[in-house]
């Protein structure tokens, strides 16, 4: 209880909770905050003629103005929160569960299994994420074309233009965003390292030996004794990873190597308007600032939450003034 109170007293923790709940609230209440328009469904709502390239400044009804092609910035920003949160949580949960299991198996078995599993984790660490994005994009593309897809774009997924209903394999592959898959494949290693170290350490701990002596079986040992004691650093890592995943996704979207990051898509669509006429800084601020702030605050919020959880869950560092 005291540690929870200490958590709530610190202003940066309150800021973290505030930011994270703001994004969760926006994601949940998106249909209420900015109702979908049946005329132009989707995140990028068109509110004028698409041939009109100049971004329009904020006006009543369009609180944050428009992008080139008259896309409503506010609408994209609000609905983007939903996608950002879904993406961050999907990547983090999948990577966290995959990595934790990997590490637990390695740590609990020990010996050569441990060495082999951790070698594989190290190999993944040595592999640059951007190569992973390029590679998986290419492999999915080849697999889809071989299975009869007509067209594939890294930003929109695959598109079957004619030739009947898609095959089950196509459907499966089309559901998986290459970037989501890549980021899961490249963020599980820290969890594996952490959990294997924890398992190696806790295996020998006295309370584990006591539980074993009292006749607890393997599953019970794992569930009631090992996991609760080993999981807290993984939780800290996970909180930070939600923000980190979004930032990576946004980066790849911005440089054109991936899709599904609406906030970065706002920046990419408006990139020629970030700099105003005669180099005026931020003459079209609504093209640049809202999306930038959303991405940065999303990262900051989860990062701070991770820091706060770290203090809350790790009594040793919390002692430090």
């Amino acid at each position, binding site marked *: 209880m005291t540690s929870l109170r200490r958590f709530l007293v610190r202003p940066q923790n309150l800021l973290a909770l505030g930011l994270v709940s703001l994004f969760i609230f926006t994601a949940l209440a998106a249909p209420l905050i900015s109702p979908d328009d049946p005329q132009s469904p989707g995140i990028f709502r068109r509110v004028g003629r698409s041939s009109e390239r100049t971004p329009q400044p904020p006006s009543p009804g369009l609180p944050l103005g428009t992008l080139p092609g008259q896309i409503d910035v506010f609408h994209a920003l609000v609905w983007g929160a939903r996608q950002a949160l879904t993406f961050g949580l999907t990547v983090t949960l999948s990577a966290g569960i995959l990595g934790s299991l990997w590490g637990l198996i390695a740590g609990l078995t020990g010996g050569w299994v441990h060495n082999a599993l951790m070698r594989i984790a190290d190999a993944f660490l*040595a592999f640059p994420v*951007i190569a992973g994005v390029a*590679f998986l994009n290419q*492999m999915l593309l080849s697999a889809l074309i071989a299975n009869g897809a007509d067209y594939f774009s890294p930003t929109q997924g695959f598109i079957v233009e004619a030739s009947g209903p898609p095959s089950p394999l196509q459907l499966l592959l089309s559901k998986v965003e290459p970037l989501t898959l890549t980021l899961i494949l490249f963020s599980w290693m820290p969890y594996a390292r952490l959990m294997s170290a924890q398992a190696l350490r806790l295996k020998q701990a006295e309370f584990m030996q006591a539980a074993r002596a009292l006749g607890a079986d393997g599953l019970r040992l794992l569930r009631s004794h090992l996991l609760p004691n080993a999981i807290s650093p993984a939780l800290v890592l996970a909180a930070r990873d939600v923000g980190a995943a979004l930032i990576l996704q946004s980066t790849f979207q911005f440089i054109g190597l991936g899709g599904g990051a609406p906030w970065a898509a706002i920046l990419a669509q408006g990139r020629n308007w970030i700099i105003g006429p005669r*180099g005026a800084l931020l003459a079209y601020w609504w093209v640049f600032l809202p999306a930038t702030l959303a991405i940065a605050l999303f990262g900051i919020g989860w990062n701070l939450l991770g820091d706060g959880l770290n203090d809350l869950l790790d009594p040793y560092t919390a002692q430090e003034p």
Partner: protein
Amino acid sequence: MSSFAKFLLRRLLAVPLTLFIITLVLYAGVMLTPPEARVSLYMPPNLSARLTEAQIANLQEQYIQRYHLRDSFAAQYGLWMGSLLSGSWGFSPALEEDVLPALLRRTPVTLELAFYSLLLFIPLGLVSGALAGWRKNSAGDGLLRSLAFLATSVPPFIISIILLVVFYINLRWFLPERISDSLRFSLEAEEYRAFTGFLTFDSLLNGRWDVFVNALQHLAMPVFTLSLAHWATLARITRVSVAGERRKDYVLAAQARGVRKTGLLWRHTFPNTLAPSLTSILLSAASIMTGVFVVEIIFGFNGVSDLITRSMRGIPDAPAALGFSIYASALTLLLTLLLDILLALTDPRVREEISQ
């Protein structure tokens, strides 16, 4: 065998082993595609210009037979590895070039960016982190912590946009791309010789100050972007370990003996706090390669990442994707190995930790 030789041997052996695991996983990915797509790894260049579709299909079938592309994973992997080691990495249909020479030609561009980033962020991170940790909770410490926090929270691509707007569009101090057009021709002139492929080194060796200054103007923004986040991580970690070490008895004892602050920090305390910082540097070196490619794309450096984005224009291009993946991980491994050895030379504890 001395502990250093043992360490060196272990680290050197780890590189091919890691590459072996990586190629195994990569080829498992290639197995997702049908033999008709896999065969593109071996097909000779520029077929579509010379042959009809039926002839190409016929040739494909021959290559599928020759490289056993319908056989087991092990057989296919072995043959592929063989051709990889003999230096034929295939012909990329999207780039219309052989993959390996194309990659190698662009390598110095990427390495130059990585080199200067490491050169910038390692000393800065160590020094600023140690100073802040030494005077914990001082005004300077607070400043460093907020700067470091911002640097790790704001995505690098947003920082690069801001840099471009301020320092290129408005001030014209720094420039995107690798070298200005007006100087590019002088590089192709006869009397200019490329020794290393690094523009900054070659220009000095050729005595061309104008090229040197120009190259630095072009390097400034990407190197800054790349260093910023890694500087922040390193400074934070160094700060925590120096602050912890400072309270130890031997430091107090030295202070009581009257050792001055500079000697106390840099000679007594700092060397003992290096281990966590060194780990952080190694991890940064691994992830800096990803950052190098991203920064290359944003600032228009025609390095390796330019190749890889061009190879992703809709036609399946397995040779380029595979080649880039192997190339990028090999480069990362070599960079990590290099730093690893440098660090082990400076700190015996790192050697022992790794050779255990």
